[in-house]
């Protein structure tokens, strides 16, 4: 018995020693293999001859060595893999951010093209200056409110400096309200990952701001526009963006009260477009309609824009920029689920296509002409609507969402103008507000449960799934988000701009409005060598030719 126990113990000792030897030998073997590989890599002399085929460039010799005495080790290779992942994601996020920035040019062309020539300089200049106003406000305060507590994104290296969210305990649960780290991007937030997310989020914010300029065009005092844009970039937009994207209470609806995966807005139908569209409605209500827009009986006059070519080219620029907006919202191309970028991009272009068809066919079939400006708005409506669901739906879903948006924008433009009596020269309230809300809602309907961005969304395990695929609670989360947009975002903007109206005044004088804002407000005509038609003739022609 004793002998058998001794034999067993000896065997166990031998096995553990041999396993230990293997475990000890494994890294050495790997390191040796790496060093062999390094020895076989192309020599400097080979590289000096040039590498037309590309087979000699980018080899093991390009992996940085941590300790030159030890040579290349597995740790060096693993570090390089990590750097490559983050590098790919940084590059992806920055380039898509640059695309979104270029959308400002598209907005400028669309909005100015839809305005009269006498206000062209003013409208272009609002679109130009909103970039500076928004960026500055976002740097000094807005980014902090939005992303100051948004640490934890592994795609961009963790973003650990952004770790402070102000919270509120209510009904036994903790709810995020606003971030606290990142003012002026100073201190710990002077960080490579933070800079990338700042740039990307900043251009999104600026998109929301520039929506308002369209709805208030041709009568907004430039001074008040500047102040209003700074405040919106510093407070209004970042607050809702924090609730949805920065770890705030809307994103916690899943973890805290079991509503689906919380409020889901992949790229910003709600955060960007509905915020912009509802802010545009609030401002347009306070500013009032342009002179000549409505008759005494309440009927409206179509005031035709001066440059349809600028409008349609602007729409194409926006559609191009949207490939940054939606696929870029994965915040990476090398991480769990990020390979869905192809699907996101295809969904984006499909919804734009069906949105165009929706508006184009609606106008042609019901109004008699394939209206160019409404076709352009249909494209934008489809793109706006697919922005929230683009990462969660199939191509069929995206086509339906876009088509509905294309028709919806035509109905909404008529409703806003003829029933609400709100003057929106470019249709911004309908394109971004109405279709933005439709996009948020459509996540709760069409999300097909196939997306997998690391196994969870907003801290809830599983994929985002809508009503049509079995999860009704996701639709409730989306409805909570929509009501928050309609009630809170709208009200904040309304109150801020109401106060600005009292203190600064929102609207230019009658004389300025009739003359056109270019000379009084900007000091220069947009097109100084154009010959202006008298206003009544323009209006008469507009009434005769209008199809909308």
């Amino acid at each position, binding site marked *: 018995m004793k002998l058998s126990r001794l034999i067993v113990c000896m065997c166990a000792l031998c096995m553990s020693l041999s396993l230990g030897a293997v475990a000890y030998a494994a890294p050495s073997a790997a390191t040796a293999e790496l060093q062999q590989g390094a020895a076989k890599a192309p020599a400097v002399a080979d590289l000096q001859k040039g590498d037309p085929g590309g087979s000699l460039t980018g080899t093991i010799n390009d992996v940085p060595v941590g300790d030159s005495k030890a040579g290349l080790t597995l740790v060096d290779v693993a570090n390089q893999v990590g750097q490559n992942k983050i590098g790919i994601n940084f590059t992806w996020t920055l380039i898509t951010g640059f695309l979104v920035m270029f959308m400002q040019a598209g907005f400028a062309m669309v909005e100015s093209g839809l305005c009269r020539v006498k206000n062209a300089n003013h409208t272009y200049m609002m679109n130009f200056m909103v970039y500076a106003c928004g960026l500055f406000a976002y740097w000094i305060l807005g980014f902090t409110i939005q992303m100051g507590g948004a640490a934890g994104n592994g795609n961009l290296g963790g973003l650990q400096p952004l770790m402070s969210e102000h919270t509120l305990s209510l009904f036994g649960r903790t709810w995020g309200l606003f971030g606290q780290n990142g003012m*002026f991007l100073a201190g710990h937030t002077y960080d490579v990952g933070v800079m990338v997310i700042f740039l990307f989020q900043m251009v999104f914010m600026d998109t929301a701001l520039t929506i308002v300029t369209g709805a208030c065009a041709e009568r907004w005092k430039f001074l008040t526009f500047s102040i209003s844009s700074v405040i919106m970039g510093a407070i209004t937009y970042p607050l809702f963006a924090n609730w949805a994207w920065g770890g705030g209470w809307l994103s916690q609806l899943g973890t805290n009260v079991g509503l689906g995966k919380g409020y889901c807005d992949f790229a910003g139908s709600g955060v960007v477009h509905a915020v912009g569209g509802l802010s545009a409605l609030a401002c347009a209500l306070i500013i009032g309609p342009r002179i000549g827009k409505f008759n005494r009986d309440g009927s409206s006059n179509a005031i035709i824009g001066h440059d349809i070519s600028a409008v349609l080219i602007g729409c194409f620029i926006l559609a191009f920029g949207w490939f940054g907006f939606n696929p870029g919202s994965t915040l990476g191309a090398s991480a769990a689920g990020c390979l869905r970028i192809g699907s996101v991009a295809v969904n984006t272009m499909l919804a734009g296509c069906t949105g165009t068809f929706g508006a184009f066919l609606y106008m042609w079939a019901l109004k008699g002409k394939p209206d160019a400006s409404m076709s352009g708005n249909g494209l934008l409506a489809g793109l706006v609507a697919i922005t929230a669901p683009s990462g969660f739906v199939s191509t069929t879903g995206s086509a339906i969402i876009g088509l509905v948006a294309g028709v919806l924008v035509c109905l909404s433009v008529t409703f806003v103008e003829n029933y609400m009596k709100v003057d929106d020269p470019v249709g911004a309230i309908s394109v971004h507000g109405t279709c933005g809300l439709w996009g948020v809602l459509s996540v709760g309907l069409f999300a097909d449960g196939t997306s997998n961005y690391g196994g969870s969304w907003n801290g809830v395990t599983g994929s985002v799934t809508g009503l049509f695929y079995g999860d009704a609670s996701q639709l409730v989360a989306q409805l909570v988000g929509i009501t928050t947009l309609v009630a809170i975002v709208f009200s904040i903007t309304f109150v801020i701009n109401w106060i600005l109206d009292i203190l600064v005044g929102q609207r230019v004088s009658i004389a300025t409005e009739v003359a056109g804002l270019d000379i009084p407000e900007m000091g220069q005509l947009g097109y100084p060598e154009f010959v202006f038609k008298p206003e009544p003739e323009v209006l008469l022609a507009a009434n005769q030719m209008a199809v909308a």
Partner: protein
Amino acid sequence: MAANKTQGQQLTIFMAGITSACAGIAYLSNGTGKVALVVGIVLLALAFWKFYSIKSLEGKIALESQPPLQKLMGLVVNIVGWLVVLLGIHLTPSVGGRMVAAILGLTISLFSIVIMLPTACNKNAIWKA
């Protein structure tokens, strides 16, 4: 009065004020931060006082007064809709019940921004005269 030097100067003071105030909040824990915050608030107050004092020089605008009480009522109803949604989430754990509360709250809020506030803002609209 269109855009002029006074507006430009006061906008400069506004920008300086908001920057200083934010810097003050960022560094509130030290003395310089507190000074920056006070300076910022003073500059902002100065800018808005000046904005207000030159507002009347703008000349007549194509907009009559909008009844403030009616506008406030619209805003209150809007917020009530949101509160209905929030209460609905906490009052019942059932998805159906929460859905009903969410739709009800959204309807109330939409009624405010689609009917009440446009009616208030257009009550004395210049095109009606």
